[in-house]
Each structure stands twice: as structure tokens, then as C-alpha cells.
């Protein structure tokens, strides 16, 4: 498997609302593979495969969670907003402050020498968390406008076996899978057209997918089904419920908002090809683009495939590439099957 491509994706900062660099990378990458991507402006990017009247969507979000500079005090300490991030993991993280100039920063906290035992017992509330770039206040105020995004400063890294850790694996593992599926299907005869969406601003605001859904509605096209690829919670020493083991395949979502008939076909293909997967039960809210796409326009039957991921929304997210590999097999097989397109 082309690990290098994933590592390239992991090194491109793509905070929600600031996905330009990721878009540029994807345009270039797809171009090399003979595919012209269409720029959807702030909503992301789209590209197509196959031909014919039948149309399916394949959507991945390309944004990642990040910190935002909220206020800078006179000494140059930058206070942070942290949408979707547990303030308890912020202390002592290294950040790249993406202001007028990129700055290295550290989320500061008083060392134990200056704290009582009592003070060490409570988490530091988010409004007291700040990033320190070591520069005088005036300089920081000049270089770091309020609203500047700050991202975790870590290179991707291979762990044992097929596991990797990196910043923004949610959802760069999904973007990686979408690119692999695109490549795998590029030379294949498909039962219809697939329109891929690399959408923006999923985290928190769920913006890009809404655009994708509306685009079909506006053009009057009817979408047979949509595939959403995202990440889900991986089990670890502590997290056992609502989570799925790494290395045992991705999850297929099951629940009221997802298509039952498409799920049944996905499951039968998986068992036919002996591809491992787990069923992920989800109620009214999946926390993914499926929530939006399934009720776009006149409604789109939606399949949700999620890659198990540990330590979600932290700088130490982990996925198992075996799960990407098995998902690639499943999705590329399924998307070539007439039954999925005629369900």
C-alpha cells in the first residue's frame, strides 16, 4: 500500500475553513492520474469517474480540528478556542501558529514547582489555556491576528506493524481511501457515474457535504446512493463501548438514517469476498456527512463506512492500514457491482 501518499496527506495542514493547501494537493495528485478535479470554492473539490445516466456520490471530508487564536494579552500569550478538542489534552502540546508568519508555539502551563498538589488535581479550563511563542506582546499582536489557526506540530509516524499515527488521520485516512478507490476504479467499467466530493468544514459545522447534496438537487439529477467515508472510535485499553477494534476491518453504519438495502448488499459482498467488517449501530445522529447527505434534496440512500481510529481529535490519532486496505477491496468491488446500482 502506498503509505507515502497517506504521509503526504498527513503533512498538509487542513483546519476547517482553511483547506486550500489540501485542495491544491488533491488537484495536482488527481491531475497526475489523468483526472480533472472541479473546484467547488469554499465547499471543496469534486471529481468524476465512469459514465452513463446513473449517478452515485462518494464523499469524504478533508478538514481537521484545530485551535483558533481568540485573544492575545499584552505579554504575547495567545488564548485559544478549541472546537471539538478536549481542553485536558491541550497542555504542553506543540503547535504551529499560522499567523502572518508561521511560529512555533507551546501550550503553556505552570511547572509543578509553582503549583500546590491541590492545583494539580483539576483540569485547566479552556479559557485559561494559551499558546506561548516566546515573543514580546507587540510582536505577537502584529504577527498573530485573532482567528489565526494553530495546528499540532507533529510529523506522521509508523508504529508497529500496519499502524500509523499522525495529525488529522480523521479524516485523512478517509481521503487516502477515496484516492485509492479512485485509482482502483479508474480503468474499470462502472455501472454508472461516481462523483467524488472532497468536502470542507465537516468538523463542527458540516458545511461542505450540504453543498454536495444541494448541487445534485439544483441540477435536477437524481442520485442513486451516496457513500460517506469517515473515521469512527477505535477500542483501546479503556474505550470498549461504541468503539471498534483496529485491524478487524472498517465499520458499516446501521440505523434509521442509513440505507438498509444498500447495507445488505455491502454486507453480502463483504462476506462473499471474506472481507472483515463490523456493524456500527447509529441512531438519529451519526456525526458524519451521512447526516446531511441522506436528507439532501429529495433524499439520498446513504452508505456509511468508517475506519476505526484511536484517540480521536488529538495529535496522536492512530489507524491500522489493514483497515484501509480491506475497505479499499470492499468499496472497489461494491462500486463495480450492478446490484448496488440497481438497488
Amino acid at each position: 500500500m502506498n503509505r507515502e501518499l497517506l504521509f503526504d496527506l498527513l503533512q498538509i495542514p487542513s483546519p476547517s475553513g482553511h483547506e486550500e493547501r489540501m485542495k491544491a494537493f488533491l488537484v495536482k495528485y488527481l491531475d497526475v492520474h489523468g483526472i480533472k478535479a472541479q473546484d467547488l470554492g469554499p465547499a471543496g473539490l469534486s471529481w468524476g469517474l465512469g459514465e452513463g445516466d446513473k449517478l452515485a456520490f462518494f464523499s469524504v471530508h478533508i478538514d481537521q480540528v484545530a485551535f483558533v487564536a481568540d485573544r492575545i494579552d499584552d505579554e504575547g500569550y495567545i488564548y485559544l478556542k478549541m472546537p471539538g478538542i478536549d481542553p485536558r489534552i491541550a497542555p504542553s502540546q506543540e503547535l504551529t501558529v499560522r499567523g502572518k508568519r508561521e511560529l512555533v508555539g507551546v501550550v503553556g502551563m505552570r511547572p509543578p514547582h509553582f503549583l500546590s498538589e491541590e492545583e494539580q488535581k483539576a483540569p485547566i479550563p479552556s479559557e485559561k489555556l494559551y499558546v506561548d511563542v516566546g515573543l514580546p506582546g507587540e510582536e505577537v499582536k502584529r504577527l498573530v491576528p485573532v482567528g489565526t489557526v494553530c495546528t499540532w506540530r507533529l510529523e506522521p509516524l509508523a508504529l508497529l506493524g500496519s499502524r500509523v499515527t499522525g495529525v488529522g488521520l480523521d479524516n485523512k485516512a478517509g481521503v487516502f481511501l477515496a484516492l485509492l478507490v479512485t485509482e482502483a476504479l479508474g480503468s474499470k467499467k462502472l455501472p454508472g457515474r461516481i462523483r467524488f466530493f472532497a468536502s470542507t468544514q465537516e468538523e463542527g459545522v458540516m458545511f461542505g457535504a450540504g453543498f454536495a447534496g444541494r448541487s445534485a438537487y439544483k441540477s435536477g439529477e437524481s442520485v442513486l446512493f451516496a457513500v460517506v467515508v469517515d473515521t469512527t472510535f477505535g477500542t483501546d485499553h479503556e474505550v470498549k463501548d461504541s468503539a471498534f477494534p483496529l485491524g478487524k476491518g472498517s465499520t458499516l453504519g446501521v440505523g434509521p438514517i442509513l440505507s438498509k438495502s444498500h447495507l445488505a448488499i455491502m454486507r453480502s459482498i463483504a462476506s462473499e469476498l471474506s472481507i472483515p467488517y463490523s456493524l456500527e449501530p447509529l441512531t438519529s445522529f451519526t456525526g458524519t456527512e451521512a447526516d446531511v447527505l441522506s436528507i439532501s434534496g429529495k433524499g439520498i440512500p446513504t452508505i456509511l463506512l468508517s475506519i476505526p481510529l484511536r484517540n480521536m481529535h488529538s495529535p496522536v490519532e492512530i489507524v491500522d492500514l489493514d483497515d484501509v486496505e480491506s475497505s479499499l477491496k470492499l468499496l472497489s468491488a461494491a462500486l463495480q457491482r450492478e446490484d448496488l446500482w440497481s438497488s
Partner: protein
Amino acid sequence: MELLKQLCDAPGVSGHEDAVREILIKAVGSYAESVHVDSLGNLFMTKGKGKKGPHLMFTAHTDEVGLMVERIDDEGFIKFMTLGGIDPRVLPAKRVRIGKDAICGVIGIKPFHLSDKEERKEVTPLSDLRVDIGASSRSETERFVDVGDPIWFDTLFEQQGDILKAKAFDDRAGCYMMAELIKHEFRFPATFVWSVQEEMGLRGGRIAAARVRPDIMIVLEGTGACDLPTDADVARRPFLGKGPVITILDRTVVANQRLVELLCQTAERDGIPWQFKRPLVGGTDAGAAVRVKALGAAVVAIPARYIHTPVALAHLKDIINTIELVKAAAERLREVKL
């Protein structure tokens, strides 16, 4: 700065200081008249043998705070203990390296989405944290990791103008400053000691002092800067970038008043900025040494923000100024009646 970078990036949690020692021997061993390593791992270099006294000893500790493997569980996760004073609040979601092969791992977290309101009010206790190296079973982890292996923070040195970012400025900054000082010709016999296990209760420094028995001891440290945001009405010194930090008293020693005066007066004379350390914070090898021999001890440090955490900030000018101050003050040691 290449040597400081090497020293900060090197692993060296207490009891596992070998890599730091090797870097120092390679970098400055050739400046010494003798090089010796004792049973605990203290590194000694001497200069100026035969010169008239007083006998001066410089000390910086090679160890850093970190973690140690306590046990490996059935699923291959690693439970760990802390070595030295570490606030458990800095540990979640950090990258670490483990053991002789420097295996990569991460300290995992429970995702925000899955923790309830009550849980978010609590600090995750040390006993609930694990290192994850990507293994799926105990046997897979055991192929790479042993109980007792050191675990250190996977942090890299970077420079941004005068601001330096790294782990372990406490006390690789001191190690570096001593490596610069040994290149200098002092007027007296001098022994340079890079000590071990300071964070374990000043263990290396104690036997080093017993061996060297100096008249005067100068400890070079990386101490905590306290110029951090606070609502409390407390002193905020020392400040990053405002010069060498001179100790009056800490939790282990009362610095020799004549040496303190010498340091302050020399700084004033030479126009070197300086500041006092907040009293009764921390401790150094001087505290162990004065219990072995009645000697005059002083502690000079660079201020570093966020010591004892995975990543700290220091100021280049503080390092340069501290080296200059110690050199200049040492020239005048004979003026001091201890």
C-alpha cells in the same frame, strides 16, 4: 547550538543517562586533562591540575524527568510510572519513545465525544494512562519493550530567532554551558561533573562531591521561568530572556552569600542582566554536596518556561549571558573569603 540540540534531543531519563554522557565525552573530552566515569554514571573531567587553589567544581545534571515501563497488559498497552516530578495533566496525547530501540509510542486518550460532563471535570489519573506502540497483544509489545525500560518525550529541538524549543532544558542547558566552560582556561584547578539521577533526589551529585571534595561548587541549571499568566498576587520572576538566575536559597541549600554577591556584582560590573530565583523553589546537587563537605556553593541557571513537561522554551541570550557571567565571576574567586 548544534551541541545543545544534540543534548536536548538525546534520551536521558534518570538512570539512563548514557547517551548524554557519550555526546559530552565526544564533544569536549579532548579539552580535559582527565576523563572519568564512576559507578553510578557521573562523568568527571578535570583541568588545571597543579594550579593554586581554590579547587572549583562545576556541576550540571545529565538526567531529565520522564517515565518508566511498569507493566505490559494483555492487549499490549504499556502502563508506566513517572521518574521525577511530572504533573499528570501534561501526559495525555503525547508522543514518546521507549527503550534501547527508541520504539515510538503515544499516550492515548479517551475521545472527547465519549466522555461525559463529569469525567471532563477530572484529571485522568496516571494509573489510567497507557502507552500504545501499535501492538495488538502482550507478546508483540514484549518483543520490543521490557519492564523497567525508560520512556522519554519525543520532542525535537527547534530554534526560532532567540527562542529555543526542546525537552529537558533542565538540565541539558547546564550540560551545554559546562561544555562551553571547559574550553575556557580558569586560574585554578577545576573539575567538571556531569552528574546523574539528580531528579531522583540528588543521588549522583552526592557521591560526586564526596569524590571531588572541592572548595567551591557552582551548579549550572535550567530552572523554571515563572513569567506566566496568573490571577494570583505572586512574584513572577524569573523572566525568560532577562538573564542568568541566581539562587539565594532553595529547598536544599542556602547559597554561599559571598559567592552570590560576587555573581551579582560581576553581572552589574559587566552589564550582564541577572535576576534572583524565587526562594524555596526546587533543589539542586548543591544541596547534596554541602552535606558531604563544607564548601561554598552557588547555583546559576537559565530560566526556561515549562520545565518538567514534554516541551519547554528557553532564550539563547540567557545561555550566552550565563556562560559569560560564570566565566567572569570565576576569574575573581580569589577575592572571595568564603
